[in-house]
C-alpha cells in the first residue's frame, strides 16, 4: 500500500509539523527529481519520474488534513462513514444560506479548524470512531467551502 508517511520519512500520526513535512519534501525532491538525471539512461530517468511523482503525491496527501486522516483510517482498516443524517441537515442549512448570497467563508473556516482539532484529539487517543465522524463532517464542510 502507498504510504505517504514512509515516503517522506515522517512519523505516522495525524498531528504533524507541516514545516517539517515541507522540508522533507524539498530534501527528497533534491535527491530524486528527474532534473538530477538529465544525462542518465532512460531506465534511470523513468525510475526518477516514478519516484519523484510518488514524493509529490505523498506531499499532497500529508499537507491536507482530510487526505491525511483518510489515509490513517484506511491504514487501520477502518471503513469511512458514508451517511450521518443529523449532520446533513446542517449542511443543507449552509447551502441554503450560501445560495441566498450569504458569505460563509469565515464561519466555515472556523468549523474546519474545529474539526481538524477534533481529528487530532481523536487520533491522539486512538478513538477511530470519533475520528471517522469528524472526517465525514470535514468532507462536507470542504464541499460547501468549494461552492
Amino acid at each position, binding site marked *: 500500500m502507498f504510504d505517504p508517511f514512509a515516503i517522506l520519512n515522517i512519523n505516522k500520526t495525524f498531528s504533524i509539523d507541516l514545516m517539517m513535512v515541507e522540508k522533507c519534501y524539498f530534501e527528497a525532491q*533534491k535527491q530524486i*527529481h528527474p532534473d538530477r538525471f538529465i544525462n542518465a539512461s532512460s531506465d534511470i530517468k523513468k525510475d526518477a519520474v516514478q519516484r519523484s*511523482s510518488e514524493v*509529490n503525491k505523498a506531499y499532497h496527501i500529508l499537507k491536507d488534513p482530510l487526505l491525511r486522516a483518510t489515509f490513517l483510517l484506511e491504514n487501520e482498516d477502518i471503513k469511512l462513514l458514508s451517511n450521518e443524517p443529523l449532520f446533513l441537515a446542517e449542511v443543507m442549512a449552509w447551502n441554503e444560506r450560501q445560495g441566498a448570497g450569504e458569505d460563509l467563508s469565515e464561519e466555515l473556516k472556523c468549523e474546519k479548524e474545529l474539526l481538524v482539532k477534533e481529528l487530532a484529539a481523536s487520533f491522539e487517543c486512538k478513538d477511530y470512531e470519533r475520528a471517522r465522524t469528524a472526517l465525514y463532517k470535514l468532507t462536507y464542510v470542504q464541499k460547501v467551502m468549494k461552492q
Partner: protein
Amino acid sequence: MLLQLVEPGKTLDPHAPPPGVVVGIDLGTTYSVVAVVKEGKARVLTFEDGGPLIPSIVSLIDGEFKVGESSAETLSSTKRLMGKDVTDPICSQFPQLLEGKGMRLSLGSHSLTPIEVAAHVLSHLRCQIEQTLELPLEAAVITVPAYFDEAARIATKQAAALAGIKILRLINEPTAASLAYGLETGAEGIYAIYDWGGGTFDLSLLKLEKGVFQVLATGGDLNLGGDDIDRALFNAFQLPDLRTARHLKECLSLQTSLEGVTRDDLEAIALPFVNQTLSITQDVLKQAKFKVQDIKGVVFVGGMTRMPLVYQEVETFFKKKPLCDINADHAVALGAALSAHSLRYGSDTLLLDVTPLSLGLEVMGGLVEKIIPRNTPLPALASEEFTTDQDGQGGMIIHVVQGEREFVEDCRSLARFELKGLPMLPAGAARIRVDFAVDAEGLLTVSAIEKSTGLSQHVEVRPSFGLDGTELSQMIFESQKYGREDIKRRLEAEEQLKETTFFKKEYG
C-alpha cells in the same frame, strides 16, 4: 548566493563528447534572447549583428531566408501559431496562411510551417552563438510560455530538432524569470511573476526558499499579448501597418503624445487588455488559496510591463510596487541559462513546476473526466479504471484531452487510440486501467492495460502534432541551407525526438 555551482568539469562524464557550451534561449514571440553562464554569472549574449534582442522574424531577402531583418516578405509573431490547428481563431491574424494546405504560411514563392519558422530562428541563433563564443553549441534550455499546451511544447521541441539543437529541457518562462530574480536578489517567500510579452500573458505564483523554486499555481492566456494592443491601435487610428502601431505604443511609454495620438488614447485602448491580465491573476490567486496580502512581491517580466498603465494597475491590484530589479527583456533568457548550467554541471537549485492545464479522458456523453487537474506538481502519475458498457465489447476508444472545460468538444484533443482485442466479457466485467504520466517538462505519456483476465495488453501513446515522422525527415533532407555535418546532427536530434515523441506500440 543560493546557488552552489560545481566547478565545471568536476561532474563530467568521462565518455561525454568534448565540451561545448550550454545556453539558455528565450524564443519569444517578438524577440529571442540568448544567455550563458560565465564564471558563475548569467549574461545575455550580444551578437555582432544587432545585440541581445534578435527579432523572431524570418524574411526573404534576395531569395534567401534571413532571420532578424525585415523586408517586404516577412513572417513575424508565428510563435502564436505553434501547436495550433487551422481552425484556431488566432489564424485570422495571419493573412499569409495558405488556404487548404494545413498550417503553412507563404513567404515569397516558399511556404513554411510555424515550426519551420521557429527552426530558422533557432538555427540562426545557433550560428550566432557558435561564432560569438567560438565553441560548438552542446545543448540548450529553451523556454516556453507556462500556459503552452502539449501540442505547442512538442512543436517547440520539433523546431529545435530541425535546427540541430539538443534540448536539455523545456522550462516555463515565468519559472525561468523567477530563477534569475531569486538567484540575483536572494529573495525568499511567495512571489508572483507577472510575465506579459508580445504574444502571451502568464502569471505564476512561486515559493522561493533556499535554492528551491516551487511553482504553486500558474495561469495565463496564449492569445493576450502586446500584439493584440498593436492591432487594436492599428484599427482605431487606421495606421499604415502593425509595425507603426507597435512603434507608437512603445514610444508612448516614454512620451505623452506622438503623431496626434496621446498616451490617454493608447491607455483607453489598452485598459481592457490590462484588466484581462488582472482577472487571470485573480483566478490564479484563488486557485492557490492566496490573498494579495500574502504575496511578498510582484516581479515584472516581458516588454508589456514597460507600459506605465500596466505598472499603475498592477500596483493598485497588489497594493505594492511591482519589482523591476531585473531587465524585463533579459530575465527569461538569464534564468534559462542558469537552468542549463545547473542541469549540465549539477547544482543545489531545484525547480518544481506544475501542469498549466488539466488532463483528462473522454467518457460517456462527450464529457471529460479529469485525471490530472491543473496545477498538479510535476512529475505526476495518475490512473483511472474503466469498464465496457456492452456485452462482448471487443475494443475501446481512449481519447485524451487537455483543458478546463466539461465537454470534450471544448477541450484540446491530444491523442485518440483504440484498445483492441479485449476478452469477450459481459458489460461491466472488463477492467481497463488508463495510466497518465507527465514528466518534469510537462510532456504526457498515456498507457492502457486490460487486466480482468490476467492477460495484459499495453498500448503507449505520446501525442504527436503538426508533422508526422516521414514529413519531418523529408524536411530534413530537402533543406538545402545546411551542410552535411548539420544534417548529421539534426538526424541525431530527430532520432532523439522520435524516441520521446512519436507513437510507440508494445504488446506483451
